[in-house]
């Protein structure tokens, strides 16, 4: 077995039911090693968002456990966990709630006690990593959607997380913004878990993929192999876009 120190994320037999009784997760198991970029694929309603909410303790497991870099997610570890798991929400407007980009990127580190010149350095460093340093004094509402999504990534990077969790990162992006974000994500040296149903994007960015369907992980393997298995995809309501073919391994490099 892997030792906890090399695993960024471990989820064991995680089950969860909403207060109204609807059960969304039925025993999820997954392990992500440090430095990996993994895609979590699944149709709408598969429980992806519910799973994500467990990763930083917004929801607490009904059964099973979640641990981040060896630290279990519990009430008393929440503060530490939330600093280690960087959650990027689907709508950047939800994430960028402060009046300016600078304030927003500073929000996380300031909450964990960073201040003064060090805070300034952290903020600028995070914005630089996503190539958005020039918008530091702008209000979020003045940015394009793609820019907002990249700033949203920076707000999380500023907390120097162990693992970056992105919820549908490619939604609503035009092709150029989509490519720019992919470049940013590829350049980061953090563990990434990308929750999406955009299969080409998963193929482009992630070596490994998991398929979540009806509250359980039904497949775990190389993205290329999973996406080539049309029957598997069809069984779980996943589809490649029309005309899209898995590039031959040689072409792909």
């Amino acid at each position: 077995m892997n030792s906890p120190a090399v695993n960024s994320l471990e989820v064991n037999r995680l089950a969860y039911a909403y207060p109204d009784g609807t059960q969304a997760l039925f025993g999820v198991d997954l392990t992500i090693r440090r430095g990996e970029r993994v895609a979590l694929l699944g149709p709408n309603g598969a429980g992806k968002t519910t799973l994500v909410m467990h990763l930083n303790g917004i929801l607490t497991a009904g059964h099973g456990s979640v641990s981040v870099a060896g630290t279990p997610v519990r009430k008393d570890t929440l503060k530490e966990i939330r600093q280690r798991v960087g959650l990027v929400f689907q709508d950047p407007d939800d994430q960028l709630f402060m009046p300016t980009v600078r304030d927003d990127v500073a929000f996380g580190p300031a909450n964990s006690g960073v201040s003064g010149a060090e805070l300034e350095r952290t903020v600028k460093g995070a914005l630089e990593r996503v190539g958005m340093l020039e918008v530091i004094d702008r209000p979020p509402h003045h940015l394009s959607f793609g820019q907002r999504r990249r700033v949203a990534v920076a707000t999380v990077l500023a907390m120097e997380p162990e693992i970056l969790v992105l919820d549908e990162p490619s939604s609503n992006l035009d092709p150029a913004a989509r490519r720019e974000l992919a470049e940013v994500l590829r350049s980061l040296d953090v563990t990434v878990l990308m929750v999406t149903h955009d299969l080409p994007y998963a193929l482009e960015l992630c070596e490994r993929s998991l398929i979540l369907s009806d509250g359980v992980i039904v497949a775990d393997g190389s993205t290329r192999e999973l996406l080539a298995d049309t029957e598997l995809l069809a069984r779980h309501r996943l589809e490649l876009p029309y005309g899209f073919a898995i590039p031959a391994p040689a072409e792909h490099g």
Partner: protein
Amino acid sequence: MGAGHHHQLYLAGDSVVHRLPPQCKLLAVAAFAIVVVATPRERFWAFGLYAVLLAGVAVAARVPLTYVLRRMVVELPFVLFAFLIPVIGLGERTTVLGVSLSVAGLWAGWNILAKATLGVVASILLAATTEPRVILIGAQRLRLPSLLVQIAMFMLRYMDVIMDEMRRMRVARESRGFEARNFRHIPVIARSAGALFIRSYERGERVHLAMLSRGYSGRMPMMDEISGSVGQWATALALPGMALAVLGLSAVQGLSL
């Protein structure tokens, strides 16, 4: 007050007025408004001098006259009202240009017109020279409860987002041939309002989650701590100070008359 005005409120610049700490400016404007309101309406020239003081601030801040005038539209209903008072006012009447007007009404109309206008212009100058978020930091410094400041901060941040949503709903309505003309159309508008509320509320919940995810624990880290030097306070308070001096002078003159 319409959508989109939001960003035109602030005119970027680097004047003395722009550089003053927000709490100094807020206090100065409030004090100025109080002095203006406290001035008896008979002292015409005092109001004239107040206007000159504000003009001085506008020149120092390089706020164009056209900008101030455009934003003064907010005041229009009161201007109309001020002109109405003499017509419907009580008491002794006089005839101006063939119209019978109430003397007390003329005084009251003048009173409201002068004081409201000076107050509006002072507020416009404040908003024109101070970024909205900076004004909030100033309010926080002036001990406005931080919860109120935070609520206002979120409101300012999401005002445009919600207004955009509302606009999109209106476009959707109108592109299907709907136009609010009479009472029967109210249900359609109300349904939009209901949907807008649900969206706003759910967004609030998501924002809260986003905050929690980044370590929010009930207290907002205030990023900038702007403190005013003695010199800056003195500069800012010069406006109400001079206004007070004018008020004092006018009182002395009033006594001697």
